[in-house]
C-alpha cells in the first residue's frame, strides 16, 4: 500500500490535537547536576559508574522488543551490553513509532521496521556526545577518537577512558550533534546485532516477580467487572441490582452505556454480584448476526463479478487477459471469525479525578488509549497519563479501548481507583474478532503456460471504518488490515485486487496477522492448485514465478532442501509448501501432515520454515517468534472458529474455543537467514504460510482442496464426500 500515513490519520475523532511529530533527537533536556548521570539524549542516560540506561519504546508482550529495540541503540553507542539497563518508555511523544505516524502503538509487526533507523541514529548520537566531550577535554581532534565497547580510545596518545568516567566532565551541548546514516556502523562491524542476547525481562518472569497489568495495584483501589449484553452493542435498559448489592463485598452497581459495572472488594465478590444482576437490554446493531448466514452472503458477493469493489491494486488489464487466456482457474475461499485468546484476560486500573486520569494498563496502544480516555471524560489529552504495563499476550486485542474505558468510567463514578478484570468468558464473547472473509480468485495462463492474469476479490466487514475512520478515508476504503497480504511477489502481468466492504452489524478487529492469515491461505492454496493443474511441482512453479526475486527464491530453495521436499514420506503422510512476503520479511514453510479419514482430524507432525527478515537483530528471538506464530497458525487453521447465532456468541471459554495443546503441537524447525536488507517485521510473519501449507499437503493425501478456515473435521469430512 503506497499511501503515506501521517500521524493525523491515526487521530480518529480527536479534533483539536495538533502535535506535529517526527523522531526528534534534539529535544530539549533539563540541565544536569554536575557529577550526576549524563542524559545524552531522550534514549540514553549514562551514569558515572558506567551503567547505560536505554529506553525501550515498544511495549513488551512476548515479542522480545524490550531487548531487541535497546540492542539497536547499544550497538551504535558501542556499549557493553552487560552494563546496559533497559527501561520501558513512559508516555511521551518522543517515543512514538514513526511507522504509526509517531504514535505510541505496538503492533502490526512495525516496531523493528519503524524504529530501526531512529534508534541507530539515537545510539550514534549519544556516542558522538561522548566523543565530543572527550575531544574537548583532551584537546584532540574528534576524528582521532574511536570507541571499543564502553571505552573511548585515543590511539595516537594511547589513552582510554570508560563511558562512566566521561560523564564526570562531559556536558550535553545545547544543540545535540547531528548524525546521519553516514555515521552508522557497517553491518560487518556489528557486535550485538545478530548475536541473540538473552531477553532482559525473563529472569523476573520465571521468578513470578514480573508485574503484568493484571498485577498492578494502587492505594485504595477497588475491583470491578462489567456485565455486557447478550449481543455486541446491546445497552442496558432496566437494571435490577437488588440481589447484586446484597452480595458480601459488592459496593456499588454502576450502569454504563455499554453494560453494568459491579464494584467491590475483590474479583470473586464482583463476579458473584454480576451473576446476581437482572438486566434487560436494548438491542444493538449486531442483534440477529448469524455467522453461518454471513458466510453464505459474503461468498455470494465475492463470486458476483458484476459487483465492483474498491481497487487495492491494478496493473495491466486482468479481466481482458482472463478473456484471452488459454486456460483459466477459479476458486472461492471463506474464513471464519477467530478470537485472540491472550492468556492474560483484559484488565486495567484507572484513577480518575475531577480533571485528570491515570491508567495502568497492559496496552499495545498508549496513544490511542490516551485519546479515547480524554474523549470519554471530556478532558484534554495532556491530562491523561497512560502507564503501559507488561502484557500477557497482545495479538491485536490490546489495541482496543473497551477494557480501559470500563476502568475509567467506573473510577469516575465511584471516586476511587478501580481495577477492572474481565472474566475469560467476557472476552471470548465480547472482543472484536478477526473479520469473517470470503475471497474469490481467478487466474489465467497464456499458451506457454505462464501466469498472465490474476483477479482477487476480498469481501468482509471493515476494521478501520470503526477503529480509525480518518485512516479509512485516507485509504479510500481500501482497508489495509482486512486485505493485507493481497500483494503478489509472483510475476503476473495483469492483476486486479479488489476489496468489497460488506457490513452485517458486527464490529470486527485486529488479530495476529489479520489479513494475511486468510489472504495468503487463498493465494498460496490457489497457486498450488494452478501448479498441480498443470502437473508441475508447486515448489518449482513458485520458483519460476519468483525468478526475479532472489530473496524469495532463496528461502524456498533452502526450506525445500532442509525438509527434503523430494523425499517420499511414510504412507499416510505428505508435504505441503507455502510462501509469504508480508511485513518486508520473506518466509517459506513446509508442513508434514497426516489425516484420519474416519474422523476428519488433521495432524501436523512437523513444520520447517526458512525466514529472511533482512538484518536479523536477535536471531533466536526470531526463531521463537516463528515457532510461536506457527503454533498459533496451526491452532487457527485446524480448529479455531467463533460461532455467532442470532447475535449471540456460542463459544465461552477454552473448552469450546480449544487452543492447540502440547500433545498436538508439531515439531517446528526454523532457520533464520540474515541478509543485508532493512529489517522487516517478525511477530506475525510465521503465521500466514501455515494454513495453506497444511491444505496443500491434504490435497496430496486426498486429492481434495480445503477452501475454508478452519479446516475442522466436519469440513474435512464434507470435502472427502465430494
Amino acid at each position, binding site marked *: 500500500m503506497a499511501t503515506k500515513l501521517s500521524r493525523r490519520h491515526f487521530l480518529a475523532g480527536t479534533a483539536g490535537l495538533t502535535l506535529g511529530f517526527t523522531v526528534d533527537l534534539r529535544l530539549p533536556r533539563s540541565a544536569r547536576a554536575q557529577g550526576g548521570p549524563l542524559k545524552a539524549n531522550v534514549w540514553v542516560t549514562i551514569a558515572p559508574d558506567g551503567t547505560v540506561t536505554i529506553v525501550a519504546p515498544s511495549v513488551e508482550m512476548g515479542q522480545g522488543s524490550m531487548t531487541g529495540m535497546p540492542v539497536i541503540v547499544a550497538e551504535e553507542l558501542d556499549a557493553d551490553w552487560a552494563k546496559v539497563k533497559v527501561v520501558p518508555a513512559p508516555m511521551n511523544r518522543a517515543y512514538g513509532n514513526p511507522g504509526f505516524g509517531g504514535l505510541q502503538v505496538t503492533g502490526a509487526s512495525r516496531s523493528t521496521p519503524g524504529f530501526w533507523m531512529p534508534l541507530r541514529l539515537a545510539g550514534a548520537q549519544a556516542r558522538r556526545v561522548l566523543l565530543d566531550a572527550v575531544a574537548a577535554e583532551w584537546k584532540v581532534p574528534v576524528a582521532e577518537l574511536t570507541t571499543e565497547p564502553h571505552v573511548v580510545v585515543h590511539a595516537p596518545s594511547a589513552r582510554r577512558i570508560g563511558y562512566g568516567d566521561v560523564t564526570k566532565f562531559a556536558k550535553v551541548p545545547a544543540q545535540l550533534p547531528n548524525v546521519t546514516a553516514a555515521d552508522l556502523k557497517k553491518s560487518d562491524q556489528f557486535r550485538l546485532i545478530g548475536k541473540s542476547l538473552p531477553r532482559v525481562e525473563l529472569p523476573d518472569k*520465571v521468578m513470578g516477580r514480573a508485574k503484568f497489568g493484571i498485577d498492578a*495495584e494502587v492505594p485504595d483501589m477497588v475491583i470491578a467487572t462489567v456485565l455486557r449484553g447478550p449481543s455486541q452493542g446491546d445497552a442496558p435498559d432496566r437494571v435490577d441490582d437488588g440481589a447484586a448489592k446484597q452480595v458480601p463485598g459488592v459496593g456499588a452497581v454502576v450502569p454504563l452505556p455499554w453494560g453494568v459495572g459491579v464494584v467491590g472488594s475483590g*474479583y470473586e465478590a464482583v463476579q458473584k454480584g454480576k451473576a446476581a444482576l437482572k438486566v434487560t437490554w436494548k438491542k444493538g446493531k449486531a442483534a440477529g448476526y448469524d455467522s453461518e448466514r454471513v458466510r453464505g452472503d459474503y461468498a455470494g458477493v465475492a463470486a458476483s463479478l458484476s459487483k465492483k469493489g474498491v481497487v487495492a491494486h491494478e496493473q495491466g488489464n486482468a479481466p481482458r487477459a482472463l478473456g484471452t487466456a488459454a486456460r483459466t482457474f477459479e476458486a472461492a475461499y471463506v474464513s471464519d471469525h477467530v478470537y485472540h485468546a491472550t492468556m492474560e484476560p483484559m484488565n486495567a486500573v484507572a484513577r480518575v479525578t475531577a480533571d485528570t486520569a491515570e491508567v495502568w494498563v497492559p496496552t499495545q496502544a498508549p496513544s490511542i488509549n490516551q485519546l479515547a480516555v480524554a474523549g470519554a471524560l471530556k478532558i484534554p489529552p495532556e491530562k491523561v497519563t497512560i502507564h503501559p504495563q507488561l502484557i500477557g499476550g497482545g495479538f491485536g486485542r490490546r489495541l482496543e479501548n473497551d477494557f480501559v474505558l470500563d476502568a475509567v468510567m467506573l473510577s469516575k463514578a465511584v471516586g476511587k481507583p478501580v481495577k477492572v478484570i474481565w472474566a475469560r468468558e467476557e472476552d471470548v464473547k465480547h472482543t472484536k474478532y478477526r473479520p469473517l472473509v470470503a475471497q474469490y480468485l481467478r487466474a489465467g495462463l497464456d499458451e506457454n503456460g505462464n501466469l498472465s492474469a490474476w483477479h482477487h476479490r476480498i469481501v468482509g466487514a471493515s476494521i478501520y471504518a470503526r477503529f480509525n475512520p480518518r485512516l479509512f478515508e485516507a485509504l479510500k476504503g481500501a482497508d489495509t488490515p482486512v486485505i493485507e497480504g493481497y500483494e503478489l511477489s509472483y510475476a503476473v502481468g495483469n492483476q486486479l485486487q479488489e476489496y468489497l466492504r460488506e457490513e452485517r452489524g458486527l464490529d470486527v478487529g485486529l488479530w495476529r496477522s489479520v489479513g494475511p492469515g486468510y489472504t495468503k491461505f487463498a493465494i498460496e492454496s490457489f497457486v498450488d492448485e494452478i501448479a498441480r493443474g498443470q502437473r508441475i511441482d508447486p515448489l518449482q512453479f513458485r520458483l519460476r514465478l519468483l525468478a526475479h526475486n532472489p530473496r524469495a527464491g532463496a528461502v524456498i530453495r533452502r526450506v525445500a532442501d532442509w525438509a527434503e521436499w523430494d523425499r517420499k514420506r511414510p504412507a499416510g503422510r505428505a508435504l505441503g509448501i507455502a510462501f509469504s512476503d508480508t511485513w518486508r520479511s520473506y518466509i517459506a514453510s513446509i508442513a508434514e501432515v497426516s489425516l484420519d479419514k474416519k474422523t476428519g482430524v488433521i495432524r501436523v507432525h512437523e513444520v520447517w520454515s526458512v525466514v529472511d527478515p533482512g538484518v536479523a537483530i536477535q536471531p533466536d*528471538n526470531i526463531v521463537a517468534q516463528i515457532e510461536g506464530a506457527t503454533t498459533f497458525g496451526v491452532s487457527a487453521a485446524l480448529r479455531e472458529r467463533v460461532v455467532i447465532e442470532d447475535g449471540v456468541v456460542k463459544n465461552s471459554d477454552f473448552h469450546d474455543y480449544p487452543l492447540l495443546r*502440547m500433545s498436538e503441537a508439531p515439531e517446528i*524447525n526454523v532457520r533464520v537467514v540474515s541478509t543485508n536488507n532493512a529489517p522487516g517485521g517478525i511477530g506475525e510473519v510465521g503465521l500466514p504460510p501455515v494454513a495453506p501449507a497444511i491444505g496443500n499437503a491434504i490435497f496430496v493425501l486426498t486429492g481434495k482442496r480445503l477452501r475454508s478456515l478452519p479446516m475442522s473435521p466436519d469440513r474435512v469430512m464434507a470435502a472427502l464426500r465430494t
Partner: protein
Amino acid sequence: MKLSVNGSQVDVAAAPDETLLWVLREKLKLTGTKFGCGMAQCGACTVHIDGKAARACQVRMAAVEGKKVTTIEGLLPDGNHPLQRAWIEEQVLQCGYCQSGQIMQAAALLRETPRPTKAQIVQHMNGNLCRCGTHGRIVRAIQRAAGGLGSSGCVAPCSKAVSPWPRNSRAATSSPARPA
C-alpha cells in the same frame, strides 16, 4: 484461616468458600500465580498443595486449611530452581503469562519422575495452555533441567540453527517475596 504458604505460616482472613487463587493474589499479594480462565482449562494458576500440582482457581480455602501451599515465588528458597534456570537457558518465555503455571506443573513432574521421557512430559504438561506457542522450548527446558541434554544443548534430533544459552545468563537470585 491458617495454612503454610511458601514455608511461612500465615493466618489469612478468608471465608472457607473463597478460592485459593484469589486469596493468594488479592490478600497475600502473591501475584506470580496467574488467572487465565477460572475454569481448570488453562493451568496458569498452578501451585503445589502438599507437593502436588493443583489448579488454584478450583481450590476452596476450606480444602487448604493446615496444608502446605507453594507458589512460583516460593519454589525454592533462593528462587534458583533448575527449571527456572533451564527456562532462561532455553529462552522459553514469550509473554510469560502462562509460565508460572508451566514451571509449577513441571516441578511437580520432576519431583515424581526425575528423568521423564518426552511422552511423559507431554502428557503431564498437556493441561497447561500457552498461546504464545512455547511448547517445544518447554519440553527442551524440562529435559535440560532433568539432565537429559547432551553437550550440544539439544535432544537428538537437534535441528535448531541457534546455539544454546550460556549457563550464566542473567538469572536473578534475590529472595522471593514472602507473605507477612
